[in-house]
């Protein structure tokens, strides 16, 4: 097993500065700047077509930006010393020859990166593909293909992982596995991970920070906590006497009240403490008062402009 080389932690920072790229009339990425901090798991979020893949490809030196630049550890990707040991990447679609076995596929890249061939077997073990090592990759299921792609990315034991929609096409079991695997890589091995997704809930339990994109532009960058605090503070309140509850909270400034399908009320614009106090003052009996946890996805949708599809 190769251990990550002891380097300056800042060596694993990804910085995008004023990145722009267009395809014909379509402005895919517009003046995009953000930073991926070393040792963090950063979710790169936005609806399909927001410019996530294009941005990742510019970071990885596969696509040239019209303007701006992306650097890894202060260098352009093409100037990295031994990029295979520094950065591992999984991009959308399958990147392997269907007529080559999984093991031989990996051994092509151990050779190219100057790694020992035993490393191919190690990463197969790591992603649970050992029983299929000598099977042709063309016969793999979607989940196995994603695992093989991940194994390829992990060959050089890189400090940085860039993953484009790694959960795409995975079954629920596969998604749970991926979540645990990424968390393991980040927590126990201190890697920097940039993972894109068009569904916040898919990565919500994995990421520390988020970079949110809409139509090629940055709409939010920060921790998941900061995003949570963006919530409008809506609460779910249940009371036997609905009219009395409505009257009691009506005194609060700038609130919105909506009736939920289960008979409870969704009260926006006030904290749980404020609503509880108003009910107590008005002597209204309440049976439930809770913050609405589900609305993180709502914040995401509001930021990215509606549907996720």
């Amino acid at each position, binding site marked *: 097993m190769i251990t990550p080389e002891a380097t300056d932690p800042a060596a694993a920072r990804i910085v995008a500065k004023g990145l722009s790229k267009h395809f014909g009339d379509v402005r895919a990425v517009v003046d995009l700047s953000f930073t991926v901090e070393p040792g963090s798991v950063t979710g790169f979020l936005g609806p399909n077509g927001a410019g996530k893949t294009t941005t990742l*490809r510019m970071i990885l030196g596969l*696509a*040239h930006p019209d303007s701006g630049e992306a650097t890894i550890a202060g260098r352009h990707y093409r100037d990295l010393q031994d*990029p295979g040991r520094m950065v591992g*990447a999984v991009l959308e679609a399958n*990147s392997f020859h*269907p007529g080559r076995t999984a093991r031989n596929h990996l051994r092509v890249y151990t050779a*190219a990166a100057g790694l020992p061939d035993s490393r191919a077997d190690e990463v197969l073990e790591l992603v649970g593909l050992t029983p299929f090592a000598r099977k042709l990759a063309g016969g793999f299921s979607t989940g196995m293909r994603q695992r093989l792609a991940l194994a*390829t990315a992990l060959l050089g034991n890189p400090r940085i992982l860039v993953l484009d929609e790694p959960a795409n096409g995975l079954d629920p079991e596969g998604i749970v596995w991926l979540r645990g695997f990424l968390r393991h890589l980040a927590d126990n091995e201190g890697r920097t991970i940039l993972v894109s997704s068009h569904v916040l809930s898919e990565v919500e339990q994995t990421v520390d920070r988020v970079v949110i994109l809409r139509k090629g532009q940055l709409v939010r960058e920060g921790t998941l906590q900061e995003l949570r605090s963006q919530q409008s503070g809506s609460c779910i309140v249940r009371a036997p006497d609905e009219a009395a509850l409505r009257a009691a909270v009506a005194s609060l400034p700038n609130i919105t009240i909506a009736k939920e399908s289960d008979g409870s009320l969704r009260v926006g614009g006030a904290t749980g403490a404020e609503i509880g106090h108003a009910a107590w003052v008005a002597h209204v009996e309440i049976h439930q008062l809770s913050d609405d946890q589900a609305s993180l996805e709502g914040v995401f949708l509001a930021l990215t402009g509606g549907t996720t599809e």
Partner: protein
Amino acid sequence: MSRLLRAEWRKLVTTKLWWGMLIGAVAFTAISVFAQLATNGLKRSQELPLGTGIEQRAILASASVGYIFSMVVGIIFMTTEFRHFTSRPTFLIEPRRGRVVVAKVITGAGLGVLYGLVCSAVAVALMVPWYSSKGITLGWASNDLYLVLLAVFGVVAIFAVVGVGIGVLIRNQITAVISALVWFLLLESLIGALSTLWAWLADIYKFLPAAAASAMTQIDAAPGRGGITLLVPWQGAIVLAAWGLVFAIAGWVTLTRRDVA
């Protein structure tokens, strides 16, 4: 570079491509040489069957049709990277794309050497027993057959490099293979036919890749093909190799500037 060469070598030997196309090359060469032997044996009069130097050279030179397979194997070897997106991990590990192209050309040349040796061997394996069964001497030295054999080897080998070059330039596999086949099997012969009418076209024609390949196998270049004067063999070899390198360099330039799918 040695890492990249090892990686390219592994890419080559871990799929069916190299031996699948080699079977095709062997079969095609054998059919071509055998057809020449059989038909020439029939149409010649009994007293001088297959005996003349020009006949012997022409029959041996027909083995160079193996070039179609060495060219297509070169094209597929290169374009497979783009077709199956293995260009991504390849260029992630070696972002200096020109070095990958160089490794590809060198590996393609090695593949060409193998194809060249096999195609030459097939021709020899058919001609030697055929001639000895007829009791006719093959003029290896007197008829310059050694040189023709060398030329057959050279044509087949160099076309693998031409194929890799075409593959860097035209990255869509189907488009690349079809364009190359249309050019070499159809268009260039058409230009060759037309250049018997116009002298200025003949001056251009002799520098085209298939004409350069013909120049290599037609050891006594003076009679040429259909009255056209071809280059001398060594010039043909240089011109053909140059075509391969021109394609590869043009492909390299576009590859470096364009985005990888």
